[in-house]
Each structure stands twice: as C-alpha cells, then as structure tokens.
C-alpha cells in the first residue's frame, strides 16, 4: 500500500517543482478530406477536426482534475497540408484559405495550437509544396494558432538545398509580415531535418502519413523535478548523478504514460507515443539550463556544456524508455533559448553563443530553437544556419531543427518578447561572413555514405 512519503513526494513535484504534462496532442489524418475544390476541402477539414477533437479539451481538463496533475496544453496535429491540399490549391490565396479553416477549427474546439501546415521536401519540392512554402508569410501573419514546419533534409535523402535557400527568404518575409509583434510569425515556423511523424510538441508537430486516422500522443516535461533531485547529487560522482537523473525521468514518464492511456481510453482514440522530452519554460526553476548547471557548470554555455547535455539527454532516455510502452517524437532535452530562464541569463551574460548552441544540438533532441537574431540578418545567412543544422541531423541520423526569429527592427542589445510559454530572448549576434555563393548553388547535398544500409 502507498505510504504518505510517496504521496507527499509526488504532490511536491507537482506543486513546488512544476511537474506537468506539457501537452496532450491529438493527431488527425486529413487524407480523407482530399478533393479538388478548395471550398469543399476547407469544409471537410473543418468538419473532420471539430468532430474528432470535439471532446479533447474537456477530457484533458477532466484528467487534470481527477489526477491532480496540470496538463498545460491541448493540441492538434494534422497531415501535412501540402499533401492534403495539392489537388485543390493553385494559388497562395487558396493555401491561406485552408490555413484559416485550420485556425477556425482549432479555436472552435478550444485547443492551444494546431500543427501540420507543413511540407516534407527532403529531396525536392513539388509545385504544390513550393506554393505552400511561399504562402507562409501571409498564413503566419493572418492566423493565430496555426503552426508550420518544413522538412528540408533526411539521412536517407540528403539535403534539398533549393528548399534551404528558399526557407532563408521565407523566414525573412515572415519576420517582416509580423514585424509589429516582434516577428512572432517565426515562432510558429520550424525547419527540420529528419522530422519525426509523431512529435506532439509545437511548432514542429504534424501527423505523419504513416499514422492512423487519429492518435493520442503525450509530451511530458519536468526539468524542475530533475533539477531538484540533483540537489542530492551535489559533490557525488557521475554514477550517482546518472542514477538520479534516470530515476527521476522514470517517475516523470510514468505520469505521461498514465495520462496518455487515460486520454486514449476516454476519447476512444488509439494511444500513439509518449515523448520523453525535458521541456523548459521561462519560469524560474523550470529550466534545462539549471539542470546542466547543477551538474557542475558555473553557467550553461561554458566548456563542459556539451558533455553535460549529452549525459543528461542519454539518462533521460534510459530512465524514461522503460516507463512507457511506446516512446517516440523527439524524446530528449529541449534547449529553446527564449523558453529557458538560465539560458536567457547565460546569453545576456555573454556565456552562451549560437556556435555553442549548435554544438549542443549534436547531442540533444532538437536544434537551434527559439533564438532571436538581428532583424537585418541576411536570408543567405539564415539559409547557411539551416544547412549547418540539417547537416548535423543528416550525418548523425537524428532530428535537428532551426527556429530562429530575425526580429524586425531590432539588433544585438535589444530583446524580443514572445509571451506565454514562448518566453522572451535577448537578440544574439550572428556570424555574418557571407555564405551566399554556397547556398545559391542549387540542387541538393547527397545522402551520406552511412545511409546506404540495404
């Protein structure tokens, strides 16, 4: 039988250490909405989403109350729209119309965000995919909660440098189109390499074509719990440190698994995966940077940071993987700068630079995430950053991503405010030596030799 100390430990994690379930995300296939008429397509999409996800938010709130665990976000992902809308959308305005119907449907069911206004162009772009990408400045400016992602490379296909080049320009255009709001549109846009089909986190979540009609994926969180647990590991060796992280990750993930199963059961939608990510928020005590500092760094960003992050990421996976029947998504430590108080402080102190963040992305689950850069950064420089991250993902057979925000009208020394979970960020300096000739070559970078495993 449970004892009072165990119950106290769980409730302390929830009340004092910010343990929460970051998101219940319902993936919905829109493949059966396909038609060649854009108005009909929008109707089909709206009806499918509002039917399937009708009870999602209420169910999430009921589970929160019954178990006493906060579930911060309820979200939806859909099939990449470039596939669903290819037959119906012939102009940018058509894609904007589809985006509005996604926005309306998501608001109708009350979710926080909807992801999947996406294109998977890791080898090359179809005309429909290119049109979707070109619609992004207008889409991200006119809609409120629609998130977009573009997959520009993979280990099996190489990197589509035409798409990389285009995305540099598009990110600049999104920045300008949402200039009044610290270029907030860029917060809703992620450029991926090796994008997973079942990611419940935003802005990069979409419902992959390998998925079923609907699925429930859950993203856990809990850097505050890991950080608190590491207080007991101060001065101890790496074996003790790793064991502490593993034990804590196991406990956090078990909560995610419980919530995922319960949501799946109540909504009568199959359970997909639990994503084992440590997702920070900009609130004090909910920081991955703080966890790294408790490992023994004076400030995140200094020497030792990459090794500490590699160890943390691995131990989170090792602890979490046995706690869940299905693990997927990104599963690792997130390092979104604007959403992590200790990283924000390290940037402000000059100890955390983009080059170090790039090195960190080699050993954790994501990429250059939520980084504010000067508004006058050139499109080719942004493309170069995307190409570098995609290369890391391609060669290391892992997901990498770029979500940078060139903040219109601002430069180094200023800061950008994104609000809510998206946080705030000091603008970081970027190496501006030109890579224009490189990114303008056209074509694609071939898949690496170790991808040929057949």
């Amino acid at each position, binding site marked *: 039988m449970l*004892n*009072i100390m165990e119950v106290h430990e769980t409730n302390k994690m929830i009340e004092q250490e910010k343990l929460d379930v970051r998101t219940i995300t319902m993936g919905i296939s829109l493949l059966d909405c396909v038609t060649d008429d854009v108005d009909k397509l929008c109707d089909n999409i709206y009806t499918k989403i509002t039917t399937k996800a009708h009870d999602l938010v209420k169910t999430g709130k009921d589970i929160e109350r019954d*178990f006493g*665990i906060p579930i911060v976000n309820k979200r939806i992902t859909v099939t990449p729209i470039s596939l669903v809308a290819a037959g119906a959308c012939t102009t940018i305005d058509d894609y904007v119309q589809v985006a509005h119907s996604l926005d309306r449907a998501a608001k109708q069911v009350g979710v926080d965000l909807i992801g999947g206004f996406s294109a998977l162009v890791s080898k090359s772009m179809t005309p429909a995919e290119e049109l979707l990408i070109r619609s992004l400045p207008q889409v991200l400016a006119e809609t409120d909660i629609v998130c977009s992602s573009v997959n520009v490379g993979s280990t099996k296909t190489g990197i589509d440098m035409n798409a990389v080049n285009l995305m540099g320009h598009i990110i600049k255009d999104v920045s300008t189109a949402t200039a009044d709001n610290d270029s907030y549109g860029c917060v809703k846009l992620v450029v991926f390499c090796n994008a997973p089909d079942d990611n419940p986190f935003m802005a990069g979540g979409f419902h992959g074509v390998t998925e079923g009609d609907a699925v429930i994926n859950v993203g856990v969180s809990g850097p505050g719990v890991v950080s608190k647990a590491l207080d007991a590991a101060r001065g101890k060796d790496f074996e003790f440190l790793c064991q502490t992280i593993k034990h804590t990750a196991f406990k956090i993930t078990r909560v995610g698994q*419980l919530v995922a199963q319960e949501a799946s059961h109540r909504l009568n939608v199959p359970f997909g995966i639990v994503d084992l990510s440590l997702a920070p928020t900009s609130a004090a005590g909910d920081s991955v940077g703080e966890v790294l500092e408790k490992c023994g760094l004076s400030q995140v960003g200094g020497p030792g940071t990459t090794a500490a992050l590699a160890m943390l990421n691995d131990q989170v996976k090792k602890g979490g993987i046995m706690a869940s029947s299905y693990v997927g998504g990104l599963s690792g430590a997130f390092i979104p700068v604007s959403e992590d108080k200790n990283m924000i402080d390290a940037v402000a102190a000059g100890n955390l630079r983009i080059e170090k963040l790039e090195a960190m992305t080699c050993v954790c689950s994501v990429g250059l995430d939520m980084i504010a850069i000067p508004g006058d950064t050139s499109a080719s420089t942004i493309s170069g950053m995307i190409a570098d991250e995609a290369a890391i993902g391609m060669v290391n057979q892992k997901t990498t991503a770029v979500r940078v925000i060139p903040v219109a009208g601002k430069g180094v020394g200023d800061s950008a405010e994104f609000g809510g979970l998206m946080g705030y960020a000091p603008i970081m300096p970027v190496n501006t030596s030109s890579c224009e000739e490189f990114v303008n070559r056209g074509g694609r970078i071939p898949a690496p030799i170790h991808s040929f495993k057949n």
Partner: protein
Amino acid sequence: MNKAIITVVGRDTVGIIAKVCTYLSENDVNVLDISQTIIDGFFNMMMIVDYANTSKDFGTIVDDLEGLGDQIGVRIRCQREEIFTQMHRI
C-alpha cells in the same frame, strides 16, 4: 473498488479528520486507511478511500473537498490513486 488518495496539508486544528470523514460518510465514500505525520513543519494527513459506491461524480468530490479545505484553512486534495501507484510501483 475505485481507490483515491485524499491529502490534507496545513496547520493542525481540532476536527479536521472529523469534518473530512463526515463529508465522506454522507457521500458513501469508504475510508480504507488513514496516516498522518509532520513534514517540513506542516501537518500532513493521507487517507486511502474507495469511492466506488458514491453517487457523486468524482470531479465534484474533488471540488467539494477543496472547498471544505478552504473553510477549515488547510489544503485538501483528492486524486485518483493511479498517479501515485504509476510513479512509485513497477
């Protein structure tokens, strides 16, 4: 059997257990076990209860007990048992 865990945290005052038990009795919630201790200087009580026979919705019991805690001046939580067993039992 549907088990839930009720926790009471706060300053110790006369009649806390009586008031909680009266509410549970009126709503056909059976108390299986009670334990209490002092943690970090605060009174902590834990009850394991079975709510299988109550006619009330579980969420209503959660809200009612929270309201009762507000009246007494303590924090009362009622949570389904699985969140604890999942975390602490393999």
